[in-house]
């Protein structure tokens, strides 16, 4: 199970995908990962829409003004939240997206998180609501674009500056002095 650590390092945000379709079995595994995320009191406020229709992806991508290449990913998964199900729906959905990104990376797929949650009644939200038929009381939390990567990006190298400034001991401001051992000599580029 140690290889999960490697996968976490390999996960990168991708923009270019091949047009090769993703199998239903693969999508089921991605969504299994999403649904295995922890949620407050186990309330699981999530729902998913699997979108393959090229026209729909294109229209929604345009309405949200996201990078047009993302619409070429063969599958978009819409992450929806039933807001009444949990007061922690934002965090629960975030954890579900994170699991999906890691599972996709492990499967050799590219996956990109397209955040939409804070843009209520923007053209993108309205377009998505009409097209996906999102009911009252549900929020469109995010899309995840999934496909076979058409670009390779090297694994993450953690900026040692970030590592050394973001960790505190016992109390805010008491910075931890130990540098990140495994990445320390790798330089600072993300």
């Amino acid at each position, binding site marked *: *199970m140690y*290889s*999960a*650590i490697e996968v*976490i*390092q390999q*996960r990168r945000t991708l923009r270019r995908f091949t047009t090769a379709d993703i*199998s239903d079995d693969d999508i089921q*595994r991605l*969504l*299994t*990962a999403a*649904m*295995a995320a*922890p949620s407050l009191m186990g309330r699981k406020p*999530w*729902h*998913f*829409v*699997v*979108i*393959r229709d090229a026209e729909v992806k294109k229209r929604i991508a345009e309405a949200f003004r996201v990078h047009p290449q993302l619409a070429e990913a063969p599958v978009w998964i819409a992450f*929806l939240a039933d807001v009444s199900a949990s007061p922690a729906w*934002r*965090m*629960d959905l*975030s*954890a579900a*997206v*994170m*699991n999906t*990104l890691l599972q996709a990376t*492990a*499967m050799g797929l590219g996956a990109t*998180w397209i*955040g939409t*949650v*804070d843009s209520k009644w923007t053209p993108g939200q309205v377009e998505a*609501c009409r097209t*996906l*038929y*999102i*009911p*009252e*009381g*549900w929020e469109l939390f995010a899309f995840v674009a999934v496909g076979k990567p058409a670009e390779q990006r090297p694994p993450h190298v*953690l900026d040692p500056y*970030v590592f050394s400034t*973001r*960790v*505190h*001991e*016992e*109390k*805010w*401001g008491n910075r*931890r002095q*130990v540098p*990140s051992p*495994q990445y320390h000599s790798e330089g600072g580029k993300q």
Partner: protein
Amino acid sequence: MRTRKGTQMLRTILARRTHTAFQDTPVPESALNHILTAGMLAPTRFHQRPWHFIILRDAEVKQEIASALRLKPSLAGAPIWIAVVAEEDGPAAWDLDAAAAAQSMLIAATALGLGSAWLMPWLGNPDALERVEQLLGLPANVHLAMILAVGFPAEELPAHREEEVYESSRVHLEQVRHAPSNAPAC
């Protein structure tokens, strides 16, 4: 296509369970570094990286927070707590960025054989939250998002089962399937 790595990842994701009792055995520094690294490699909106991580090991501090939050006392027995806190970063995405980092850390912890719990028992209780933020010494623009308890589990919990986790009723194709009375909001 089923790959070995994909299968292993799903196994790790399914093995993550919420633990409430832990062994005293300390968490090795190298494991803690892996976990923190996993948190900091999670994506953040506009690459803002608003999070900070406060490592709590002091038993008295953990107990004080646990009692302020009325947590199960055994949770304070986890050798390490990681308080994930975040600076407000313009559009309010700090909670999402913190949650993605938290989940990444829990997956790393699971992969390393550690048990964990994601705690935020202050929802709906702003006084308790304020008390804990004070104990942590947080400045006004920094918020506590969640506390992760991490340690070797006192008891091995069985992994979630794939066929129980996947609920096809939550998966819709192209459009949300509606009950007839349930009109879209737009």
